[in-house]
């Protein structure tokens, strides 16, 4: 009866050991700069389109929904405020995190999983390379750099989507909308919250992808299983961590 619990604790332990090794390797030679840039391209540039599209429609739909609620109180002019706060604090980081989790946690898990089942990971170790140094650390660094940047882009595109709705359907002026967007943010806590969350999510996405990839067994079927597990675990963890981080910020700032 205790077996699943023991297995869970053992898996969690393996996950933290792998994460610890990946972080330690940032400060150890050899450094694989080329791999970091390749991964930045795959994770960052590759996710730009999907993050922009979801950000745009996310911002737009939120403006539409919120304006309806605000109209009840005669506060339609505050649409920019609501869109801005929700995007920067919650929607931007979480939506971007989920998109990148769906796209890259799965990509990382399937790539590393395929390498595992075709013995390429063993070959790498046999040929004098630490797979954590060569495969995991570059993915961790690349995701940690790119996810906050993608979140910033997603936030702005979402604000723009909200602006189009505000202008076309709600009849708000550009000046009114953008002023309320700007003034809604509390400096520096909102930008810090909006950037710290994607940083934490980046660690989760990259490490969950690598962890499930590297522990793949059972041929191509195993690769599929690892990929699914990675996406599910990364998605769930993003929501759990988001709540925890939000609680910390709410307690700290009272905002």
């Amino acid at each position, binding site marked *: 009866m205790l077996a699943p619990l023991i297995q869970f604790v053992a898996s969690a332990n393996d996950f933290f050991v792998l994460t610890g090794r990946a972080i330690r390797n940032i400060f150890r030679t050899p450094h694989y700069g080329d791999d970091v840039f390749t991964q930045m391209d795959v994770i960052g540039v590759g996710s730009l389109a999907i993050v922009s599209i979801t950000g745009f429609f996310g911002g737009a739909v939120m403006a539409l929904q919120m304006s309806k609620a605000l109209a009840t109180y005669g506060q339609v002019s505050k649409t920019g405020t609501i869109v801005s706060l929700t995007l920067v604090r919650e929607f931007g980081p979480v939506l971007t995190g989920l998109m990148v989790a769906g796209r890259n946690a799965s990509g990382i898990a399937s790539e590393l999983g395929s390498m595992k089942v075709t013995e*390429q990971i*063993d070959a*790498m*170790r*046999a*040929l*004098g*390379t*630490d797979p954590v140094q060569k495969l995991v650390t570059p993915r961790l660094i690349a995701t940690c750099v790119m996810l906050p940047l993608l979140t910033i882009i997603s936030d702005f595109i979402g604000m723009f989507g909200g602006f189009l709705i505000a202008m076309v359907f709600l009849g708000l002026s550009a000046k009114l909308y953008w002023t309320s967007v700007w003034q809604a943010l509390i400096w520096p806590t909102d930008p810090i919250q909006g950037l710290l969350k994607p940083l934490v999510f980046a660690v989760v996405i990259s490490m969950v992808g690598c962890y499930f990839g590297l522990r793949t067994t059972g041929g191509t079927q195993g690769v599929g299983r690892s990929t699914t597990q990675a996406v599910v675990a990364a998605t769930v963890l993003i929501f759990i961590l988001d709540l925890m981080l939000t609680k910390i910020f709410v307690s700290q700032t009272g905002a």
Partner: protein
Amino acid sequence: MADASPPSVLCFDHVTVRFEGSDALADVSFEAFEGESRVILGAAGSGKTVLLKTALGLVRPDAGRVLAFGRDLTAMTERELFEIRSRIGMLFQESALFDSLTIEENVAYPLQNQKSIQCPENEVQPRVDQALEFVELAGTQEKFPSELSGGMRRRAAIARAFITNPPLILYDSPTAGLDPITSHTIIALLIKERDLRHTTTLMVTHRYQDGNLIANFRYNSEQGRLEPASNGNRSARTVFMVLHEGRLVFEGGQDRLEASTDPYISKFVKQRV
């Protein structure tokens, strides 16, 4: 024998490896000496691949010691193992070439990534070309592994295994999944490699024919082809080992292997016919 025996290259001392409660290797002991060829026979799941991976330090034994070149692998950290691994070449069962790298980059990989091998940058290219020439794959440098046939991938992986001139090479089922003609070509390459560079060879296989070729043929460098080795010019001593469910059930020469009445062992020998 009165003459001094050659130095030990690889020694398994009561090695046991367990996976999920069952023994993949159970109390295996043997010693391979310099210049020797060892053919390891066994059915699927008998622990052949685990034995090779343990010899490289990729799998750590649960009990016993593994000594390579006199050094205890079981007491080393992963980083310390890199130095030992640079002296051991390994051909993985499915070749294990890196998909994202070209054949040239794959073959150059050990030269560029093994710290203990100080290969000047300007020597990498000629050595890769030479290694690919050796395995008769010249002209495939720019291709990716997915563009090559199974036999060609196997040959490229052999080139990657020996490019650093390691004194010990481990081959994991080099002919698995290949047609008889390609299999013969691959074994001929192994013999050529062994006889020209005098490497100690451990070959895992489930095909007795492969072992028979290794034991009874030598590479004639003047004529550039294999020829039967008479007792006088047999260039390397071949020892056969048979694994059964993780246990070493036979170790000895070909004559003894063929004379064995054990049903499991004789099953392999019968394949010859």
